[in-house]
């Protein structure tokens, strides 16, 4: 006799009442075809990174295409941040991309080593994916802000001289993009998804790392002359 059948017979499931719901299916991880398509179609990449956070978390937690996911996130972080500087006087096309991606890469070793030290069991690629999600989400949000930055640049002339200059407003928009990038990391890896079961230590670690990342990003902005 099939053992599962036996178990079912020994422990009959209670009859579903009017309020019983079937257990929710865990969200599926991204497939290779979905990720490959997102590499070539920017709108698909945006949808996967911002709109499918449960599936992204499932992919990072145990999906087979983690490497491709990391590549997609790093590529998105770089590509989507380019227009922000290119279409405004924010100081060169690559500066927003450098701001978000290089700052993350500088801080990434600390996140990985401390994670291992605390004993979360997250692998290198998983930690990199979590960190790269910050850069990707922040880069995508800066992409959303680039028409606004262009308009402000166009309509404000006294750059850097007035009390509220274009430079000040541009940095404000980049700070909002930074905050939303961190928020997306939190929504994927702290407040929902398969990472909910991990204890409070990694979450506190991520919080502390966010502070470090914020400070390094601020210093990077100074270095880049933003």
């Amino acid at each position, binding site marked *: 006799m099939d053992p599962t059948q036996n178990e079912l017979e020994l422990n009959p499931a209670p009859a579903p009442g009017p309020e019983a719901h079937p257990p929710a299916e865990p969200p599926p991880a991204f497939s290779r075809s979905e990720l490959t398509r997102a590499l070539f179609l920017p709108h698909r990449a945006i949808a996967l990174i911002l709109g*499918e956070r449960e599936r992204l978390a499932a992919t990072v937690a145990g999906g087979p295409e983690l490497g491709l996911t990391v590549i997609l996130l790093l590529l998105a972080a770089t590509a989507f941040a380019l227009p922000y500087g290119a279409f405004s006087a924010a100081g060169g096309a690559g500066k927003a991309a450098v701001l978000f991606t290089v700052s993350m890469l500088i801080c990434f070793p600390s996140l990985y080593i401390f994670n291992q030290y605390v004993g979360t069991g997250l692998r290198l690629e998983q930690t990199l994916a979590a960190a790269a999600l910050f850069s990707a989400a922040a880069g995508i949000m800066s992409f*959303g802000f680039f*028409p606004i930055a262009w308009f*402000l640049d166009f309509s404000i002339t006294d750059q850097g001289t007035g009390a509220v200059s274009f430079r000040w407003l541009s940095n404000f928009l980049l700070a909002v993009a930074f905050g939303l990038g961190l928020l997306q990391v939190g929504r994927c890896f702290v407040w929902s998804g398969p990472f909910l079961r991990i204890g409070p230590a990694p979450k506190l670690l991520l919080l502390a790392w966010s502070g470090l990342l914020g400070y390094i990003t601020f210093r990077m902005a100074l270095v880049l002359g933003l």
Partner: protein
Amino acid sequence: MARILAVLIGCSALYGFAMGAVHSLDFALRNLVKFPALILLTSAVCAVAYYLFTLLISRNLSFVEVQRFSLRTFRDISLLLASLAPVGLFLARTLRQPDAEGLHDYPFFLGLNVFFIALCGSAALVRRGQRLLQRHRLDRKSTLLILAAWLGLSLFVGAQAAWYLRPFAGVSTIPAEVTPFFLGTRPDIRGDTNFYQAVYHLLQPPPLAADYHMYRW
């Protein structure tokens, strides 16, 4: 989409005409272009950001749906404002105009227009929010978050767009002939060249220049 745009442009032009009539026919005619331009510029500049903020909150709306939805909201605002255009026009032509003795009813007229715009904006947002709840299977919290994000973005960009395209009403003591179509980045009486700086200086007023009463565009 073309019909939404046509109603939006027609209605906002009508309201702009009524607002400009407080100064002269010249200003009223200019606003036929400037007021729709203000709304279209704001919605175009914010379009990508509207979508990305929506995607952060819910994936139930596509890019096209978000744009259609934001245009419908602006159309509703324009339609509601157009219904108040006769009131605005009547007041514009009957209120006591600024002269050498003072501004008289002019500040009230400006305040009333701000109130009208806030009222119509709030009504359109509430109505469109209800549609979001019904049609796109969004919960109340997500709907509120999306509308708050859109409102914040629209105010952030729309305020500077209005500053750039000013004046919409003008002061009757400064003739239309010497007033450019829009003032753009020209400094105001306090030397401010953008909206955000003007707000900052409302909170932290700088000393006025000695000849501030001689100010012209």
